[in-house]
């Protein structure tokens, strides 16, 4: 066995070469993910476009009925699914953002170090719970609870999906917000306290605004998770394709429609292409969310420079 010092003394490859090699390796990794992403995007477009040979774009974007396996007349309108997706996602954010940012502020500013040491890993473990388990909780626990509270015959509602997605988005929001709050320089806090501000004022008026870019990024990541989540909403929201009426009625999101129908669809039919068009719509939505968060972050960084 060669000792460590030996290998340092006689490198099997010159330092400059090694640098180059590592450089090349990282370049290949980086370019690979770009190629994969472009490939997915192209595949989506190529497979989605033939759908519009038989469906008019107007019907697809503004149609109020989605029923590609109809007994009488096939229809391909995505409006109810778009509305459903936004209802569930925004509902989840409305619950998860205040709760998540509050928890992050508590963990980073208020909590005793020992509490934080226990609580933070627990929150992060929450991220590892499979979505099918969360969906099951939605059926047996959250759904019946919602039904009881609101006097509904059943709990398969948009609200159920929103609560469950909030639980799934929380670990991301808490963990990243907490890191952002931690990275605010201590001098900010010290200056604020020295000026006579209370701890509450320091957290709300100084630290959270200073960490806002990170907190917004956290919320956007949480939103991304909520938009794309499939299994949980599939199990917990009833999935009736009708136009949603309220948060206390069933909804069917873009993701659950794809999951329900892709398994049985015959390849290279209009229905098959239409499902990829749904995927494209989902892709565009996540792209826009990321773009908006990017713009917000840049503006914010400029203002604070």
């Amino acid at each position: 066995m060669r000792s460590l010092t030996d290998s340092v003394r006689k490198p099997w490859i010159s330092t400059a070469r090694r640098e180059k090699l590592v450089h090349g390796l990282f370049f290949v990794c980086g370019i690979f993910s770009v190629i994969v992403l472009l490939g997915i995007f192209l595949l989506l477009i190529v497979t989605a476009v033939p759908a519009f040979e038989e469906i008019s774009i107007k019907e697809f974007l503004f149609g109020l009925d989605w029923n590609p396996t109809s007994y009488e007349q096939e229809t391909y309108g995505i409006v109810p699914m778009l509305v459903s997706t936004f209802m569930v996602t925004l509902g989840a954010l409305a619950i998860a953002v205040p709760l998540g940012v509050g928890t992050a502020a508590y963990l980073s500013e208020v909590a005793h170090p020992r509490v934080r040491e226990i609580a933070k890993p627990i929150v992060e473990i929450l991220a590892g719970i499979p979505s099918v388990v969360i969906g099951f909780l939605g059926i047996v626990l959250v759904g019946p609870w919602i039904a009881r509270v609101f006097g509904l015959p059943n709990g398969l509602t948009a609200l159920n999906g929103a609560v469950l997605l909030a639980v799934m988005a929380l670990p991301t929001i808490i963990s990243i917000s907490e890191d952002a709050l931690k990275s605010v320089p201590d001098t900010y806090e010290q200056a604020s306290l020295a000026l006579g501000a209370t701890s509450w004022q320091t957290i709300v008026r100084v630290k959270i605004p200073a960490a806002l870019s990170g907190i917004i990024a956290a919320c956007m990541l949480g939103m991304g998770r909520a938009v794309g989540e499939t299994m949980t909403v599939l199990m917990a929201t009833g999935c009736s394709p009708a136009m949603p009426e309220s948060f206390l009625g069933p909804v069917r999101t873009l993701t659950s429609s794809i999951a329900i129908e892709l398994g049985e669809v015959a390849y290279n039919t209009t229905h098959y292409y239409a499902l990829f068009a749904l995927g494209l719509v989902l892709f565009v939505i996540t792209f826009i969310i990321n773009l908006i968060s990017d713009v917000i972050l840049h503006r914010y960084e400029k203002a604070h420079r």
Partner: protein
Amino acid sequence: MKKAMMFVLLAAFLSWSPVARAGRGMIQIKGSDTLINLVQRLAEVYMEGHPGKYIAVTGGGSGTGIAALINGKCDIADASRVMKPKEEARVAKSGRQVHRVVIAMDGLSVIVNAANPVDRLTMDQVGAIFRGDITNWKDVGGPEMPITLYGRQSNSGTFIFFRDTVLKGDYSQKMNRMNGNAQIVESVKKDRTGIGYVGVGYVKEATGLKVLKIASHPGGNYADPLNKEDVEKGIYPITRPLNQYIGGQVSPEARAFIEFELSPKGQAIVQQEGFFPVSAEYKALNRRAGF
């Protein structure tokens, strides 16, 4: 970490596919959610009696099983509906022939919550309810309360069969699309306004719900899917055969398993699981198919 996992998956995939193709004695069965418990039970008993034989049974819905059969991803497809001509043509296009075997009979059961006073409906009423034409229980002799519909998703053979034989039209867009028979049973148990449809094998031991008696036409006799005679004689109007489809040459392994399913021992298991033995009409069909 992710990369390592990818490699493991890739390795598993590469090593698995040729083995699966060359694996003698291994039968892949895929499809109907209505049939899955029954076929799994049949496979278990069969494997106990035939060491060295392996049968893998998975669900996903009749549509999923038939799609897998078309794509050559399984040996036998369980289907609670018949294959559409389009689907048979797709198998034929790949140069294979489709064989159909009926392994059991099902009295497709319409269920409501145990607290619902309604205990019988006609076919027309059931159809109107699921089409969304009747939306309140008071219109079918029940209390004043809205009806909540529980049905399957479009990959389900039961979804298609029920639509084509009972509704003869489209489902209400407001129907909740549940992921399997068991979910419908659970939902109807909890929802006193609910109505759903499931294979009879799922209601035999279920509590908290009621199986409706159905008449084929107004003024006709109401028949009960739990009553063996009503289903066997076809008096119960939503009786259907439960099928298995085999694509291409029937391998000796598949033939042996199907013969076991149709044997008196196999048919006894069918009844234990809450379904009914193959009727004389479909026995004749099986014989014509060579079983």
